């Protein structure tokens, strides 16, 4: 088959590819590509270019665009090419347009017509090519233009056409579900297609349909189960086998569908138990594809109505994954564990050490997956360890996307399970400090609200303790050089509200700090606004308490700066501050009452106190207010910024004739209800324009909190303050029934530990370090303890994990001391699908071969084990010959090479048998590649010595 791999482009194109391949820098490459673009621009628009030439130009365009340059000047030529009559040219045209154009491109409309014509073609290959284009190019608007034809093609005699038509409809469904909703019966019919390929393709749209509406497809459960059964029993043609598994891709798709259909449906699930159990048994866990199916089985089992036997098989499979040396399988194992843990939480315990290994693995992907698992199994007993770990990891990474995710998870867990207020504040501080700019602003508001409201109980001392500790921690944190804006806002607000509340810090100290903040972050207006308002509060509290206010000099200069600020918001705040300072104690107390951020504020939404003023104005001839709903000629856009609307309506052009003046003038009340609530929220630095409102709103954020920031606080409050009581769920330790903390808990977690260590160690023979045991105990050992301690105070009732930390490892210490290098002992993490013993038949396995190709020496050395040493000593020479041989020497070399690669065949070990087929076809191919080498040389393309890789077989 090697002949198909020849090169049929012109010398010019080969040269281009070659010179780009040899370019030493990106700049050089760009220069070459740019000159190529110039050439193409000129040539492509020449009239009467022969088709064959044109085809090559288009392919060169594709190449140019693939390298990241703009080839849009040639798009139209690619579109033209799709009109051509010969399939060869048409195919190139379609390939180019599908690669160039996204579905929203303007040129699409020019292709629709061609597609319509091609869908009617007698030649099924033309139809296939057109269908490929349909999948990529047809957008929501153009679906109706081709839909009827595609539905017709569902009955086409050629299975390839039916299959592609199904895929096209699947794509349409994704783009616009309503466009194909009437075709559901067609999908059902295609499920019974004679051709397994068409049936397999039909599973794609059905999966989507079932995802969106499970109940309409319950009747198909029996069909899916019977198809899956037949597939698993190898009833499909041999051609669908893949690495000796019967049609694995179809099996996986079917298992996914069954998982959806059986979710929460006992009756449907019962139909599936037998077949899923069969697949569990039949799956060959030594091949990668077998493991892919096993994983899908686990997903299915954890989704459908639970069945103890299947759960057991799933747990077995998971433990095999986790014990594997392959990182891929560990990753899948962790993921699967996260799924199964919802149904049988006890399963986590036996894998605790494996989980911790993964957590400490240098592989980021695996680590993240493990964090996901920990997130799923967090309880109030292990929240501290988990969140601390998460935060440490969060600090260590740069990937903002993931940082955001993990930060929000930390916040979520802290809000749900926080064992103490102190801990909560500290955790939030850390999250804000390191990921403050990434967390949602609502989280900050939430925190302010929590601090303001306390924790639900009438325990005022606890609340004020919390506030003092928050103030203290913030004053400390302010020493850090660079803090995120959101965090500073929280700090300013808390300092303003509670900075002087406990009398520990003087007003001048706090105001000094606030001024420092405003100066240090002088380009952040929001922070400055928060700081000014905080200053105002501090001074107001001072005045109200009857003390003399002595403004610091730096505060004075700050105010002067703000009074002249470009930001009207800052100006406004500064003027307000000035005004407040000038008032007497009584007035100040009524506008800025101390610690009243949680009090409800009565807002007169009707603004009835303005009635007199309005009446007066109307009598003077002003127009009465017309409510928005009664206004004509205005689009009802939205009520966002009602006031602006109102202004717009009064200033805008009127298109209707003026009405006759009415005699009865009615005083209308401006509907300021929306405006009044809208002007208040904190995040926007917009401040109310009317001075009425500013005076009625003493503390800005408290109102904001009460109006819109209704987050998960309800749940939080319940959990907070009181220690939650956890009944023992674990069966592992019956000893932990004693009520006192400390020792009992240690016992409990230790028994759990030693038990699991036995199972774990018996296989691995690795000693476990005390740190790891400690961690395991705090992560997994928690739930078994019974907590009956009365919640006298948060500090005293710290969960036992700390106690465990200090005591638990002692028992393991002796064991660990025997060997000091237990943990990071790197196992042989060969690729999956390989035999676990490194030296077995390396060249039989394509995966392994590839690794060998990376470093030829390792391959050679591993080959030593099997082939005679004579062959080995030769092999480096052969490698040398391989890149430099003249064409004449082919036969001899390839014989030696094939001999070399054949010899290990006899040493084949179970588990690699799957690769045999691929391998046998391999050995003669060496000849091919040598021929190819020679051919390329003939073409004038000399492989540069730097990159002989280009000639290496991808499959080895």
């Amino acid at each position, binding site marked *: 088959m090697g002949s198909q791999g020849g090169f049929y482009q012109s010398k010019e194109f080969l040269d281009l590819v070659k010179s780009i391949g040899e370019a030493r820098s990106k700049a050089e490459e760009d220069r070459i590509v740019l000159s190529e673009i110039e050439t193409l621009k000129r040539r492509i628009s020449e009239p009467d270019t022969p088709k064959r030439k044109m085809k090559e130009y288009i*392919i060169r365009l594709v190449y140019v665009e693939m390298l990241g340059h703009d080839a849009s000047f040639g798009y139209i030529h690619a579109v033209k090419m799709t009109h051509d009559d010969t399939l060869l040219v048409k195919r190139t045209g379609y390939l180019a347009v599908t690669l160039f154009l996204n579905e929203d491109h303007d040129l699409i409309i020019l292709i629709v017509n061609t597609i319509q014509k091609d869908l009617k073609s007698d030649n099924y290959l033309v139809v296939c090519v057109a269908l490929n284009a349909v*999948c990529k190019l047809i957008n929501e608007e153009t679906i109706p233009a081709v839909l009827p034809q595609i539905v017709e093609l569902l009955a086409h005699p050629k299975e390839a056409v039916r299959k592609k038509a199904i895929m096209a409809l699947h794509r349409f469904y994704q783009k616009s579900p309503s466009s194909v909703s009437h075709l559901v019966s067609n999908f059902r019919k295609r499920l019974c297609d004679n051709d397994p390929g068409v049936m*397999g393709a039909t599973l794609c749209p059905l999966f989507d349909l079932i995802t969106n509406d499970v109940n309409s497809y319950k009747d198909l459960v029996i069909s899916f189960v019977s198809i899956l059964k037949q597939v698993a029993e190898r009833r499909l043609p041999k051609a669908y086998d893949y690495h000796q598994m019967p049609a694995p891709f179809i099996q996986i798709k079917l298992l996914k569908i069954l998982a959806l259909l059986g979710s929460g449906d006992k009756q449907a699930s019962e139909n599936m138990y037998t077949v899923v159990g069969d697949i569990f048994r039949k799956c060959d866990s030594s091949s990668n594809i077998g493991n892919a199916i096993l*994983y899908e089985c686990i997903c299915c089992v954890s989704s459908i109505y639970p069945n103890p036997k299947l759960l057991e098989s799933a747990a077995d499979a998971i433990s095999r994954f986790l014990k594997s040396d392959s990182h891929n399988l560990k990753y899948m194992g962790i993921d699967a564990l996260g799924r199964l843990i919802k149904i049988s939480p006890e399963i986590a315990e036996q894998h605790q050490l494996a989980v911790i290994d993964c957590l400490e693995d240098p592989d980021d992907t695996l680590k993240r997956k493990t964090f996901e698992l920990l997130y799923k199994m967090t309880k109030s007993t292990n929240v501290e360890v988990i969140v601390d770990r998460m935060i440490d990891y969060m600090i260590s990474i740069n990937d903002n996307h993931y940082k955001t995710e993990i930060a929000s998870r930390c916040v979520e867990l802290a809000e749900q399970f926080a064992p103490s207020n102190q801990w909560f504040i500290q955790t939030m501080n850390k999250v804000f400090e390191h990921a403050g700019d990434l967390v949602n602003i609502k989280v900050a508001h939430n925190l302010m609200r929590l601090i303001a409201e306390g924790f639900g109980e009438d325990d005022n001392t606890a609340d004020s303790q919390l506030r003092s500790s928050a103030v203290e921690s913030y004053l400390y944190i302010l020493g850090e050089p660079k803090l995120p804006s959101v965090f500073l806002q929280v700090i300013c607000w808390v300092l303003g509200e509670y900075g002087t509340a406990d009398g520990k810090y003087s007003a001048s100290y706090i105001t000094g700090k606030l001024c420092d903040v405003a100066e240090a972050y002088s380009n952040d207006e929001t922070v400055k606004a928060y700081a000014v308002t905080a200053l105002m509060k501090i001074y107001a509290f001072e005045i109200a308490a009857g003390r003399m206010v002595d403004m610091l000099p730096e505060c004075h200069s700050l105010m002067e700066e703000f009074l002249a600020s470009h930001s009207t918001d800052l100006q406004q705040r500064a003027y307000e501050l000035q005004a407040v300072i000038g008032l007497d104690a009584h007035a100040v107390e009524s506008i800025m009452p101390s610690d009243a951020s949680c009090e409800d504020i009565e807002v007169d939404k009707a603004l009835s106190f303005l009635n007199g003023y309005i009446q007066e104005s109307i009598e003077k001839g002003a127009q009465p207010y017309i409510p928005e709903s009664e206004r004509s000629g205005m689009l009802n856009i939205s009520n966002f910024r009602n006031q602006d609307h109102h202004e717009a309506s009064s200033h805008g052009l009127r298109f209707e004739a003026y009405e006759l003046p009415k005699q009865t003038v009615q005083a209308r009340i401006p509907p300021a209800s929306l405006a009044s609530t809208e002007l208040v929220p904190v995040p926007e630095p917009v401040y109310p324009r009317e001075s009425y409102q500013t005076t009625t709103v003493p503390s800005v954020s408290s109102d904001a909190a009460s109006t819109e920031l209704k987050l998960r606080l309800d749940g939080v409050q319940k959990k907070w303050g009181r220690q939650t009581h956890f009944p023992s769920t674990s069966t592992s330790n019956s000893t932990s029934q004693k009520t006192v903390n400390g020792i009992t808990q240690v016992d409990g977690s230790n028994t759990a530990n030693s038990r699991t260590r036995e199972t774990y160690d018996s296989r691995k023979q690795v000693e476990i370090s005390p740190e790891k045991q400690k961690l395991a105990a705090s992560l997994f050992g928690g739930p078994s303890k019974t907590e009956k301690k009365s919640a006298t105070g948060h500090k005293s009732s710290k969960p036992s994990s700390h106690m465990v930390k200090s005591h638990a490892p002692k028992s393991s210490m002796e064991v660990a001391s025997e060997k000091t290098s237990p943990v990071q002992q790197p196992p042989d993490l060969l690729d999956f699908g390989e035999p676990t013993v490194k030296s077995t038949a390396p060249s039989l396995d394509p995966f392994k071969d590839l690794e060998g190709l990376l470093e030829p020496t390792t391959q050679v050395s591993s080959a030593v084990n099997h082939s005679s040493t004579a062959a080995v000593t030769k092999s480096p020479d052969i490698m040398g010959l391989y890149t430099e041989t003249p064409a004449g020497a082919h036969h001899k070399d390839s014989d030696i090479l094939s001999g070399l690669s054949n010899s290990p065949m006899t040493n084949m070990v179970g588990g690699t048998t799957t690769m045999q087929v691929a391998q046998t076809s391999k050995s003669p*191919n060496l000849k091919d*590649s040598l021929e190819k080498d020679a051919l390329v040389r003939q073409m004038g393309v000399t492989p540069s010595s730097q990159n002989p890789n280009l000639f290496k*077989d991808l499959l080895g």
Partner: protein
Amino acid sequence: MIHFVLLISRQGKVRLTKWYSPYSQKERTKVIRELGGVILNRGPKLCNFVDWRGFKVVYKRYASLYFCMCIDQDDNELEVLEIIHHYVEILDRYFGSVCELDLIFNFHKAYYILDELLLAGELQESSKKTVARLIAAQDSLVETAKEQASSISNIIAQATK
């Protein structure tokens, strides 16, 4: 669903890109640069999956070429790894022990084969035989043109000797 397929050489050169979800040219360049940086720098024994902007990228190295596919969070990574391998086996069968050079000079053929394997971001055909048959049918239709081209390449070969 597979959102895109990338083939990148060890040196970071792009050998093939196929986008099943809409990405602008600018985004494409950025994606390739970003992922190239992540994947090419990963050690050999780590797992073949990478978290990336809320998606997962499954990659596998074959000789000097990295095959990457970007999938959704809830897709089966091991399956996608096998889809990659499936593709490589088909390429291998078609080109006869395929090497990177085959894909460099015949990238359009690699695209045609990919189009028979994946469609609209899903695996459309899992039988190697069927894919091979379809590609062969297309090739046989263009046989004449091929012969023509073949003679041209011989002429070039003669000329450059």
